[in-house]
């Protein structure tokens, strides 16, 4: 029986080994232990989507995972998004469309949007809306976010 465990997690390409309390969840581990405060906590029950990030190529709710469950995984947070390709195009599109106001939902929203685009998501506003319906935004009313994702889906990555 253990209440702490030593884990090794690769985050944004960098390997970290630490001993964590087993009850600590993944988002708290990333924010507090690794200082990666780019990902945000919104509800701690998996509904708002603020904590959504990429683990082993898939979006997960990091508030619903224990840090110890991330042992041996590869995680990408907003800080680790590449400065080129789809991710960069998406960020430019977000800025251009003002698809963020306070910026609190943005890390989770980008993660969900990238999942959509990287899995062949089409330039279809209804489909985009459905896909991001697990990410709560209180500021924008969603339209600018949908436009931003739509623009990238339609125009692709500029050369």
């Amino acid at each position, binding site marked *: *029986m*253990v209440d702490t465990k030593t884990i090794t997690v690769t985050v944004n390409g960098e390997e970290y080994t630490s001993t964590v309390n087993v009850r600590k969840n993944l988002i708290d581990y990333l924010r507090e232990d690794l200082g990666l405060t780019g990902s945000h906590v919104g509800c701690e029950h998996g509904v708002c989507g603020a904590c959504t990030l990429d683990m082993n190529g898939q979006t997960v*709710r990091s508030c619903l995972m224990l840090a*110890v469950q991330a042992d041996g995984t590869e995680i990408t947070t907003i800080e680790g998004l590449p400065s080129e390709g789809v991710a960069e195009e998406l960020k430019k599109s977000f800025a251009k469309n003002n698809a963020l106001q306070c910026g609190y939902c943005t890390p989770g929203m980008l993660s969900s949007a990238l*999942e959509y685009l990287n899995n062949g998501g089409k330039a279809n506003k209804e489909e985009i809306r459905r896909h991001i319906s697990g990410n709560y935004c209180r500021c924008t009313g969603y339209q600018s976010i949908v436009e931003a994702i739509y623009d990238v889906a339609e125009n692709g990555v500029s050369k």
Partner: protein
Amino acid sequence: MKSSAFQYELPEDLSSALKLLNSEDLDILPLAGGQSLMPMMNFRVAQPDILIDLNKIDSLKNIIIEGNYVRIGSMVRYYELEQSEIIQKHFPLIVHVIPYIAHSAIRNRGTLGGSVSLADPAAEMPSILIALNASIELSSLNSTRSVNAEDFFKGIFETDRKSNELVTSINIPISSTPKKFGFYEVTRRHGDYAIAGSVVTSDGGQDNFHDTRVVLFAVSTKPMRLPKSEAALNGQNFNNQDSISEAIDAVSGNSFERDLHNDEITKETLAKVSLKRAIGGLNG
């Protein structure tokens, strides 16, 4: 909303997990996808002494054909079900329903076994499994048994699983032609738990209602199978409005459970609407 303290175990195989579950002194909970248990723990509604993480048990992660059944390991995740060629071929109903379940991040982790063990009355999968005549396989340290899905779900968050058992697989009989199905749920927002929902299945090889199953979800303490509605439909043409009306009328007289926003009358009304629309959408 931080969970209370607990000890953590990560068994490598099923028998280690079952051994751990066999203790009587302590409050032990198995952790599958975590998409329902973690919120409960964060709210301190669940406060186990020991958490047993099942995510390393590879033997529970397969989807295979075993004779006349598809055997879905309990730790198979929703997204895996959706992408599985076996499921797509034999149970298009499951593939149809999965996009209604929450959102992709939840489906990337949530497991079928976890959903089945939780038995949230508003969940879709328990009713789908009843409509497909599935069985739930349960294992404890010393025994394995199988319970028909209809007998497994007993009440709100209540199943036939004993605390020293784990759901190990969900077994669904294969039909020569996949079942025809109709599915409709009423939600206020995409991805929400339904306010009311209905699933109808019928023998895929027949051109009228045959071997019909009608199951309602989200309107009572557990999935509600409607034998009277099934009887009204069986043998009838898919478009026979009289039998459809009879099937819908048979929704009345059952016991409906209100929720925070919807009273019993609304539940009954919406149950009827969802059944009507499920039948109307039957892929016949």
